[in-house]
């Protein structure tokens, strides 16, 4: 009931404006810069890949044109050699030259024809720009040399004084193979290395000698030193694969003394483009040059010389256009960011100004000043959204003014109502106190019911447990009976097998009986025999006396046998009798066992019935118990409800007290309200 507009926390006047400005700035930048950045990055990537491709193509083209140029020149030199060798005059002059060479060695005079032809050959060498021109006879002896370095008369075959490539070329030419350029090698005259090509000299299809020409690498170096289109750092490197190293064969831009001296080990990081070219590969791409610099290179082999050619340009120079492009893009992006930021700031300010005006008005209203004002601000703001806001604030102020007036009138009426309410609540308090006493009595009664029903429930639970126990015992009994049944069945089986064995004994006894009968018959016969023997002995008189004794003895034995067999017969009979009675007993026992089995089955069935009956009782007891439990719970619930009711009554009484107090407060508050409202200036 307090009105404290001055205590409500309001943000400082500039906070709202700044926050809007910040957010606007952030979103402007986000919307403008993200697509801009994506576009710039994509464009930069496409442009840089196109640029790199064009630089690499340019390098490849230069490499190809240089290789073609060198190749064409070498082919031209080979044609020269063929033309010279095919000159018919040379074929005829070779023997002359040989003779001259021989005579020169021995200090004789040179023939005129030989010297004439030697002059022609020197001229030809000069005209064709050859460093050396040799004529060699089929035996390998040098018979003419246009330039010093190789002595006339030295042999191709001794393999020590003559360069090996020249000797190899001579061998090929002697085998009438087409001429080819050999390796560049030092001829030992301190000058440049010389490569040679040998061509057979034929006279009517017969080999009369070999013409060898020597060329210096000057012409090739000149071609390679033309670095047009390669900028300030580009150069062309040639190399020859020799074992595990690549020999540089042309002057380098940074190492003029390199040719035929500088070696690049194969597999090292330095000079990777040259290594690939010397290995016969063709291609282009980033590489490391002989100085360890990162370069962009194109490489290709020079098959006619066995060299590799690598055109390269430093990566910094090759990629310079890429850098320029990147810088331009970066500048553009920065300009965009600056423009967007400025625009966002201006826009934010235009938004925040009218809002601040509205805030000022609201603050004044909060301070209690409800006098009509702010129309000037609304007109100034125009008729956009912020203008509408200011108009709405003015309307609100008007409404608030009329409301405050009405509150001042109503507060008087409220005070009188509060007094009446207090009187009524005092009466109600008395009634509640009576109600509370009755409720307590009811609670005590319900509690007794609850206790009784719980005892009943416990008893029921015990009964139930006993029934369950009975059921378990019956189940145990049934399983024991099942075991007993099995045992009885086994017993019945054993009994029958025992009976069978007894029958077997009986059969054996019958067999024994037969045997005994036979023995008896034999004994009888023997008896008869002995009597007859005795009679005969008697008839024989004195002579039969001895025989008579024997006969008597036989008779005695027969009698004993008869007696023994009688005994056996008797025993067997007794045994048979016993067995028969045993069989009978066993049969009787088996019958008893069978009847026991049947009785057990009957008992088992009855036990099963008892178990199911007990289970049924269990269920029913369970239902009863459940009912009792429900009843007990019901009683408990009733008690709880009654207690709650009692508590409710108590609480109602205290609430009524509180209500009384509140009414007093209300009255005081309405008084305060009246005072507060009077604070507003309408």
């Amino acid at each position, binding site marked *: 009931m307090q009105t404290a507009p001055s205590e409500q926390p309001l943000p400082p006047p500039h906070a709202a404006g700044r926050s809007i400005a910040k957010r606007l700035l952030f979103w402007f930048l986000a919307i403008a810069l993200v697509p801009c950045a994506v576009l710039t990055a994509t464009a930069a990537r496409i442009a840089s890949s196109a640029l790199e491709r064009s630089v690499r193509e340019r390098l490849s083209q230069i490499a190809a044109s240089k290789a073609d140029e060198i190749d064409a020149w070498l082919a031209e030199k080979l044609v020269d050699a063929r033309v010279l060798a095919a000159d018919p005059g040379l074929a005829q002059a070779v023997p002359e030259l040989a003779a001259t060479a021989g005579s020169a060695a021995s200090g004789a005079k040179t023939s005129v024809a030989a010297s004439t032809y030697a002059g022609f050959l020197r001229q030809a060498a000069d005209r064709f720009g050859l460093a050396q021109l040799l004529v060699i006879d089929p035996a390998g002896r040098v018979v003419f040399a246009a330039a010093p370095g190789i002595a006339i008369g030295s042999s191709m075959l001794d393999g020590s004084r003559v360069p090996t490539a020249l000797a190899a070329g001579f061998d090929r030419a002697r085998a009438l193979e087409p001429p080819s350029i050999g390796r560049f090698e030092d001829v030992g005259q301190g000058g440049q290395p010389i490569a040679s090509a040998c061509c057979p000299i034929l006279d009517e299809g017969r080999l009369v000698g070999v013409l060898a020409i020597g060329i210096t690498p000057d012409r090739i170096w000149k071609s390679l030193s033309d670095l047009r289109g390669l900028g300030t750092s580009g150069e062309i490197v040639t190399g020859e694969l020799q074992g595990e190293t690549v020999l540089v064969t042309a002057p380098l831009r940074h190492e003029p003394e390199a040719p035929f001296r500088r070696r690049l080990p194969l597999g090292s990081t330095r000079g990777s483009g040259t290594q690939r070219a010397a290995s016969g590969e063709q291609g282009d791409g980033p590489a490391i040059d002989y100085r360890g610099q990162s370069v962009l290179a194109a490489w290709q082999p020079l098959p006619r010389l066995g060299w590799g050619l690598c055109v390269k340009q430093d990566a910094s120079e090759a990629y310079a256009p890429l850098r320029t492009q990147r810088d331009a893009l970066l500048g553009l992006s920065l300009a965009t960011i600056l423009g967007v930021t400025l625009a966002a700031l201006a826009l934010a300010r235009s938004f925040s100004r009218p809002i601040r005006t509205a805030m000022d008005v609201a603050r004044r209203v909060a301070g209690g000043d409800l006098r009509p004002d702010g129309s000037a601000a609304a007109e100034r703001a125009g008729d956009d959204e912020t203008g509408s806001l200011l108009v709405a604030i003015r309307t609100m102020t008007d409404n608030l003014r009329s409301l405050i007036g009405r509150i001042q009138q109503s507060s008087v009426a409220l005070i009188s109502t509060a007094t009446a309410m207090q009187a009524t609540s005092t009466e109600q308090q008395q009634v509640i106190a009576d109600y509370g006493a009755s409720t307590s009595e009811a609670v005590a009664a319900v509690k007794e019911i609850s206790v009784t029903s719980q005892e009943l429930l416990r008893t029921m639970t015990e009964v139930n447990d006993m029934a369950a126990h009975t059921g378990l015992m019956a189940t145990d009994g049934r399983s024991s009976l099942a075991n007993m049944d099995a045992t009885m069945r086994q017993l019945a089986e054993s009994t029958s097998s025992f009976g069978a064995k007894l029958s077997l004994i009986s059969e054996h006894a019958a067999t024994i009986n037969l045997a005994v009968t036979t023995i008896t018959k034999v004994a*009888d016969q023997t008896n008869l025999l002995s*009597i007859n023997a005795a009679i005969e002995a*008697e*008839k024989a008189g004195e002579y039969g006396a001895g025989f*008579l004794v024997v006969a008597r003895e036989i008779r005695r034995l027969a009698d004993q046998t008869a007696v023994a067999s009688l005994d056996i017969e008797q025993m067997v009979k007794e045994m048979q009798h016993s067995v028969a009675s045993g069989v009978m007993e066993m049969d009787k026992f088996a019958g008893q066992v069978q009847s026991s089995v049947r009785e057990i089955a009957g008992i088992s069935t009855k036990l099963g019935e008892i178990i199911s009956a007990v289970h049924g009782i269990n269920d029913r007891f369970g239902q009863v118990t459940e009912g009792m439990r429900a009843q007990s719970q019901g009683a408990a619930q009733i008690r709880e409800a009654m207690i709650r009711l009692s508590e409710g009554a108590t609480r109602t009484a205290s609430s009524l007290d509180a209500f009384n107090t509140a009414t007093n407060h209300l009255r005081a508050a309405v008084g305060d309200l009246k005072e507060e409202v009077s604070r507003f200036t309408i």
Partner: protein
Amino acid sequence: MQLLCLTVGDDSYAIPSRRVVEVVPLPTARPLPDAPAAVRGLFVHRGRLTPLIDLARLLGTAPLRDRLSTRVIVVEPAGGRVERPLRVGVAAEGVLGLCDDTAAEDRMPPVTGLAAPCLGECLRIEGRTIQCLDVDRLLPPDVWRALAAVSTGPNDTRPSAADGRRA
């Protein structure tokens, strides 16, 4: 003199062993119809038809019990021919064996006139009373003759046998 002791019922009897041909088990006898009760029939002994006399019937005791120990003593009574002596089988319930009449402790001469003519003297040997039998007088003379006629072979005539039966 050696005697062959035999039993009929509970009593012992004896026959002089000299007159005994052989002791054999009870054979199957073919009955002679209408013959005296003591003549049991005819049986075959050593290939000869021989009359069989039931000693129990003859002595008037209970009929002969057919037992395993029942024996037929084949005897040779006087009256036959030398080349074919008369033989008669006497069936007794048992044969005890031979005994010597010189070992008799006491003896009584035959009672003539009172008893059957076949009974000889009575001996007491080893605590047993033994009645000796006269082999030649086992049957009445006419029966005996008839039997002798039957038993002595084909030389005799059928009418004489019929005469014996008639007597």
